[in-house]
């Protein structure tokens, strides 16, 4: 007996749909699981007091500071490099062997596992350059890691600025750089910022790189050459060494909330950017 194509289609859609629902369900499960256990622990006190007894009790203030400083430093270094690269790729050159090489390099860098960034940062920044386990070493290593994210997103944003704007600008006697500064970048800005925000997100999520390069000090850093600890690292240490489940969940909840805020605001900006384009 031949099964009718219509029937096959219904079965296929059901299976495919179930796979999709399952995937989304995992996301929702993870978020709810972490928030349900962690939210009761979260409080103003938890966020803004110092940890005591290796983090078994007390709050996460120094960790909060570390979680802000590392991504900020990473962005200060990576954003100009990444945006500069994408401006060069789109505005100052035509497709050639060199642009393909740059793109290939960017793609490869994006695929490099974080443990490799960690090893590199440890040998290069921590050891050879003598920066030690520090905010500096960690921020620079993270900058290497998020460079591809920023390049790709801002390249896409810059490319989406209508060609006609550039043509008009050139026809009025503007140079390339004047055109970039006055027409292209202002119009690509929301998209470029999205890339930067996604870079912040990547830095907040990262654990391996940070452990290898910034160490895991629990003290409030007083200089860029002090060691520090981010929420992801703190959570890992608490959970793995079973120090305090309560504080682990509290940290996990703050981590998830930070990641959600950063990523959702990136999507929101990208969405508005695209809506305005059309």
């Amino acid at each position, binding site marked *: 007996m031949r099964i009718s194509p219509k029937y096959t289609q219904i079965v296929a859609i059901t299976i495919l749909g179930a796979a999709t629902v399952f995937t989304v369900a995992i996301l929702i499960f993870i978020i709810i699981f972490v928030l349900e256990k962690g939210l009761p622990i979260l409080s103003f006190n938890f966020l803004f007091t110092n940890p005591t007894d290796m983090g078994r009790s007390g709050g996460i203030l120094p960790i909060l500071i570390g979680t802000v400083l590392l991504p900020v430093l990473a962005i200060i270094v990576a954003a100009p490099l990444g945006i500069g690269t994408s401006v060069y790729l789109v505005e100052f050159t*035509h497709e050639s062997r060199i642009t393909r090489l740059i793109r290939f390099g960017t793609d490869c860098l994006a695929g490099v596992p974080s443990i490799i960034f960690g090893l590199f940062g440890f040998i290069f920044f921590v050891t050879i350059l003598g920066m030690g386990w520090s905010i500096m070493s960690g921020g620079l290593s993270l900058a290497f890691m998020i460079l591809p994210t920023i390049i790709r997103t801002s390249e896409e944003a810059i490319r989406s600025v*209508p060609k*006609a*704007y*550039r*043509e*008009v*600008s*050139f*026809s*009025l*006697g*503007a*140079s390339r750089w*004047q055109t970039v500064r*006055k*027409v292209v970048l*202002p*119009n690509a800005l929301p998209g470029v910022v999205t890339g930067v925000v996604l870079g912040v997100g990547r830095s907040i999520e990262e654990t391996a790189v940070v452990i290898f390069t910034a160490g895991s000090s629990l003290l409030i850093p007083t200089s860029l050459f002090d060691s520090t600890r981010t929420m992801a690292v703190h959570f890992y240490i608490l959970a793995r060494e079973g120090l305090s489940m309560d504080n682990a969940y509290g940290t996990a909840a703050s981590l998830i909330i930070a990641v959600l805020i950063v990523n959702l605001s990136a999507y929101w900006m990208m969405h508005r950017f695209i809506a305005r384009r059309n």
Partner: protein
Amino acid sequence: MTQEKNIKIDTRHLNLYFHEEKILKDINLEITSNQILGIIGPAGSGKTTFLRSLNRMNELEPGWRVEGQILLDEIDIYNSELDVISLRKRVGIVFALPVALPMSIYENVVYGVRLSGIKDKARLDEIVEKSLSAAFLWDEVKDRLNLSGLRLSGGQQQRLCLARVLAMEPDVILLDEPCSGLDPISTTWIEDALTELKKNYTIILVTNNTMQAARVADKTAFFLMGELVEVGLTRQIFTTPVKKETNDYITGRFG
């Protein structure tokens, strides 16, 4: 070349290649000052390419090659000390589709002159009023100069584009089918502005609408398949063309 003809632009044996395909074939055309030259011809005849070669807009894309000469006031625009930025300031262009830059009306108009380094507010204000008036747009927008240029209608945007070029006080204005997307009333505005402007400028108008050339052009050139078939006084071209192709095109047998 007699003195009284007053040649502004002179192209000599101009050949243009795009990736080795010959787009323009041996164009020799003298363009007189303070006149409107209409350029007509079917799609793909090379008229827009010719227009864009006059202020080197073609080369924004790679793959173009030029042979021959284009003289602007007897200076070769491709092989001389004249750099492309100063050239474009002297030879302005209005494109087929009105493109207001995503900034205020005011900033649109002063975009070019700001780049030339004029910063004095009073001077800029003066330029804005003068240019918008010359493009017949001043009365409609004078109370809302801070409005985004994108909020104007198509016809208004095209006049804004014209004003933007006028603000630079160029010698030559190139227009690439400036009315192709516009309604009849906006078209009339633009045509009136052009007739007024030729007192001070040399104007080259590419148009798909042969009647438009007949209405406003002093001279008309007919392009076909990358060649300049014929050029002459507009009345002569439209009444007694020398070439059969010209006659066929004007009477609507093809194109």
